[in-house]
C-alpha cells in the first residue's frame, strides 16, 4: 500500500520538528521532550494492541519492566555492556509478551483485561520478592560508566536526546508502516468484527498473537531505553500505575491513530508538569481532565481531528 504524500509529510514532519527542537529548546524542556519521546514509544507499542487490535490490556507494565530489568540486571549483575543488554531487554520483553499472549488470548473482553492485570501484578510482586537482586521498590542506579554505548555517553543530555529520538522514530515509523500493511489492516478488521474476519478465512488467533508480541516488544524496548537513558530501574515501573499510564496517553491522544500516542503523552506530561508548578494538586487536574475527556472528546484529541477535519488520518 503506497503512502499518501500528506500522510508521509505529516509523520516525517513531526520527526523532523522533534529533531530540530533539540537545538532550540532550553535545558529543562530539552530533558522533558527526551523523556516524553521514550514514554511515547511505550504508548506507541500499547496503541498497536489496544488502538488497532481492540484488545484492552492492563498488563503492559510487565513488558515495560521486562525490558527495563532485562537490560538493567544484565548490566548490574552480569557486567554486560549497553548494546547486548538492550538486546537482552528487548528479547525478554518479546518472550514475556509471547508467553502471556498464549495464555491471555484464550480469553476475551473483561476477562482479557483482568488476566493481563493479574499476570502483570504477579510480575511486579516477583520483582519485590527477589529484592536481593532487584532492590525492590528502592530500585538501583545504573552508573554513568555503565551507560556508554559505542563510546557515546548516554547520560549526556544531547546524546540522550538523540537516542530517545532514534528510538521514537523507529517505533513511530514502524507503527505507521504496520497499520498500513496487510497485517495491520487485518488487525483493524479484527477490532471491528472478529467473527467476520474469521469467516473470511483469516487466522485471527495468530494475528492477535503477532500484535501482542509486536506491542510487547516495542514496550520492552521503551522500558530498556528508559532504564538506560535515565540510569535507574525500580519496581514502580512494573506496578499497575505503569499499565494504566499508556492506556491514558493513548486514549487521551486518540486510540487507533498513529499520532495519538505521542500527542497524548505530550499533553498529559505537560498538563501535569505545568499544573504542578501552579498547585500541588496536579492529580486533581489530571483526574478532572480525564473525566472531561471521556465526556466531551471520547475519541481523544487526534481522534476528534480525524472525525471532524481529516477522515483519512491513519
Amino acid at each position, binding site marked *: 500500500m503506497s503512502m499518501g504524500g500528506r500522510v508521509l509529510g505529516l509523520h516525517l514532519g513531526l520527526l523532523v520538528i522533534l529533531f530540530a527542537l533539540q537545538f532550540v529548546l532550553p535545558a529543562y524542556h530539552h530533558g522533558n521532550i527526551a523523556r516524553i519521546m521514550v514514554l511515547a514509544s511505550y504508548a506507541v507499542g500499547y496503541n498497536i494492541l489496544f488502538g488497532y487490535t481492540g484488545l484492552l490490556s492492563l498488563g503492559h507494565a510487565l513488558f515495560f519492566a521486562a525490558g527495563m530489568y532485562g537490560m538493567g540486571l544484565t548490566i548490574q549483575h552480569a557486567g554486560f555492556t549497553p548494546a547486548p543488554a538492550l538486546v537482552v531487554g528487548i528479547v525478554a520483553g518479546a518472550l514475556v509478551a509471547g508467553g502471556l499472549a498464549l*495464555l491471555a488470548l484464550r480469553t476475551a473482553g473483561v476477562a482479557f*483485561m483482568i488476566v493481563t492485570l493479574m499476570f502483570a501484578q504477579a510480575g511486579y510482586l516477583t520483582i519485590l520478592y527477589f529484592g536481593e537482586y532487584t532492590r525492590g521498590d528502592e530500585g538501583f542506579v545504573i552508573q554513568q560508566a555503565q551507560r556508554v554505548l559505542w563510546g557515546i555517553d548516554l547520560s549526556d543530555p544531547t546524546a540522550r536526546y538523540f537516542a530517545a529520538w532514534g528510538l521514537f522514530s523507529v517505533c513511530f515509523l514502524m507503527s505507521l508502516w504496520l497499520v498500513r500493511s496487510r497485517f495491520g489492516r487485518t488487525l483493524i478488521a479484527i477490532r471491528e468484527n472478529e467473527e467476520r474476519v474469521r469467516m473470511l478465512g483469516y487466522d485471527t488467533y495468530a494475528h492477535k498473537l503477532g500484535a501482542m508480541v509486536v506491542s510487547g516488544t516495542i514496550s520492552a524496548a521503551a522500558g530498556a531505553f528508559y532504564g538506560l537513558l535515565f540510569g535507574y530501574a525500580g519496581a514502580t515501573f512494573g506496578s499497575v500505575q505503569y499499565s494504566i499510564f499508556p492506556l491514558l496517553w493513548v486514549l487521551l491522544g486518540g486510540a487507533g491513530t498513529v499520532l495519538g500516542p505521542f500527542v497524548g503523552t505530550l499533553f498529559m506530561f505537560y498538563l501535569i508538569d505545568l499544573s504542578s508548578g501552579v498547585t500541588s494538586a496536579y492529580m486533581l487536574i489530571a483526574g478532572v481532565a480525564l473525566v472531561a475527556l471521556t465526556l466531551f472528546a471520547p475519541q481523544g484529541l487526534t481522534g476528534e481531528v480525524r472525525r471532524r477535519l481529516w477522515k483519512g488520518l491513519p
Partner: protein
Amino acid sequence: MEFGPHLILATLEGAVTAAVLALTAVGLSLVFGVMRVVNIAHGEFYMLGAVIAWYVAQMVGGHPALGFVAALVIAPLVVGALAAAADVTILKRIEYDPERTIVATIGLLYIIQQLTLMTYGPEARPVEAPFNTRVELPWFDWFETLFGMAQPWGWSITSYKLFVIFAAGAVLCGVWAMMARTKIGLLMRATQADRDMALAFGIPVERVYALVFGIGAGLAALGAVLIVPIQQAHYLMGVEPLLLAFIVVIIGGLGSLPGTVLAALFIGLSDGIISVFFSPTLAKILATLLVGLVLVFRPQGLFGTRTA
C-alpha cells in the same frame, strides 16, 4: 510455637481479612453484575469510608463505641450518596461504555485521592475500637502424661476482630436477602438479566443503576469502617483492596454473589495462612497467578454461569 496454634491464629486473622474483603468484593460484584461496569474507583470509595469514619468518630467524641456506631451508619450513607451522584453526572452521560467508564473511573480515582490528601492530609489515623479485649485461644496438648488445656502466651485475638467477622457475615446475609426477597432486589436482577427488556417493562433502569452504584460503594465503605480500628485510615489505602476485590470477583464468577463470598473466604484464608508460614509477598504472587490461570482456563469464574 507449634504448628497447631499457629494455624488457628492464621486462620482467624485470615477470616478477618476475608470478612472485609467479602464486603468490598460483593460491592464490586454487584456493580459489575448489574451494570456491566468495571469500577476502578471502588478502592477509593473504600478509602473514603475509612476517612469519613475517622471524621465522624472525632466529631462524636465520648465513649469510642458511640463514634464507631455513628461512623458505621454515616460513612456508608455518605459514600453511597457520593457514588450515586457520580453515576448520574458522569457514568450515565457516557452511556456505561466499557472503555470510557474505565477512563472516567480512573479520573474519579485521582480526584478522590487528591481531594482526600488536600483535606485529610497524608497521615494515617486510627479509630478507636468500641471494645478490644484480648481473647485467649485455648489449645489442647499433652502435658507429661495427662491431656489438658494450655494457654500459650503471645497468641490471642481481640474480641473486636471476632466482631468484624460476625458483622460482615450479618451484612452479607442482609445483601442476599435484599437481592432474593425484596422488590428492589427483583428489579436489580431483572435489570441484570436483560436491560432492554427491563426498560420495556417500565423498570426505571437509570434509577436502579444509580442505586446499585451507591450500594456497591456503600458496602466498600462499610468494610472500611470495620477495618479502621485494626488498620489506620490513610489516603492511599484503597489500592490493595481494589486489586484483591478484583481477584475475588473474578475467581468467584462475575456477578455471582455466593461465588464472590466463597472466593473471598478462600483468598482471605489462604492469604492469612501463607503469610504466616511463608511470606506475604509470596502469598500475593500465588494468589494473582492463580486468578490469572483460573480466568485463562475458566473465563466465567468458578461459580459463574455466563461468559463475560
